[in-house]
């Protein structure tokens, strides 16, 4: 496939992620921080997020499985996950965390379990989206092209 076509595909794919709510404006902020001196910045931050979220999701699974559920601890973990997902612009993950915290506040275990599943699902989905995104970027860079950035005016 020609370089221009891959670049076009990347732009369209990225736009679709915004349309579908997977990403929000904060992701564009991250892209602004990437340049020739730091060409893998977004990839590195996103990778850190998934390492972090995996640990947090494991902790949450264990915590909700206890006979006496520690809601404070759970809230703290979800707060962390909400924060880091917000920092990378992973909007659907962030929103799922907000819903999770609401059930935590009222100590509703069933609600929390459902939310945990939702957060896991959203993390899984957005991880796949990012993998596709980075694959396209790699193809572009391997062809010697530059990764196009999108404007928020679309």
């Amino acid at each position: 496939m020609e370089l221009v076509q891959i670049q076009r595909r990347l732009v369209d794919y990225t736009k679709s992620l915004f349309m579908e709510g997977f990403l929000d404006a904060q992701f564009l902020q991250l892209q602004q921080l990437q340049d020739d001196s730091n060409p893998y910045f977004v990839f590195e931050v996103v990778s850190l997020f998934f390492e972090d979220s995996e640990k947090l999701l494991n902790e949450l699974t264990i915590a909700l499985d206890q006979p006496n559920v520690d809601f404070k601890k759970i809230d703290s973990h979800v707060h962390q996950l909400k924060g880091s997902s917000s920092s990378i612009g992973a909007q659907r993950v962030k929103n799922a965390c907000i819903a999770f915290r609401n059930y935590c506040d009222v100590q509703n275990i069933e609600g929390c379990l459902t939310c945990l599943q939702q957060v896991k699902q959203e993390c899984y989905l957005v991880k796949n989206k990012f993998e596709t995104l980075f694959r396209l970027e790699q193809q572009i860079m391997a062809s010697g092209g530059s990764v196009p950035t999108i404007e928020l005016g679309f």
Partner: protein
Amino acid sequence: MRTTEKIDGYDLSTSDTEEVHVLAVDDSLVDRKVIERLLRISSCKVTAVDSGRRALQYLGLDEEIQKKETNGFDGLKVDLIITDYCMPGMTGYELLKKVKESSAFREIPVVIMSSENVIARIDRCLEEGAEDFIVKPVKLSDVKRIIDYTTTELREGEQREGARARRRGINKRKQREGDDDLSSSPPSTLSSSASSSPSSSIQSAAAPLSPSTLDSPTRRLKMTSSE
């Protein structure tokens, strides 16, 4: 790039280079990486730590660790502290208090970051002497704004000290005369603490209503309360 200015024979550079040295404090690895990059791209030197405790250790303020040198660290002066509010152990608020209580470091501006946009929280931080409050997620424009006025403050350093002393003299005289002249005092000061205010009269005269000043939640609060 900025050049070292000499005014009245004083060298106003704060360290060997022109760069602002920021101590960034955040327990989140993701956020630390982002804030570090945001600061570097804004031409700052960055030291990032993961807790309030470590921040105090770096400054040499940790009571349990003996200060080996007068400054307690490698000798690189900290020009600005930017810290997350919600952290396990010591919160950003507690860190702010410790810094402002210290005679050696109270003049260092402290900026608080928080994902929660709670007025009571913002007020409490400002009252304790915080320079500014950023709502997360942090954007490049937030960091640029803060570095801009930190740089301005540092560069004007002694010059402003002199101007402030003169203003205090003027204000005291006007208070005695019962004349509350707002134009002679910084219009956007909320707290009455003696620590350096975020906007000097020079800066606010230059751009009182620029979009960047209106973006900050603290600016909005300050402007409302001075009406």
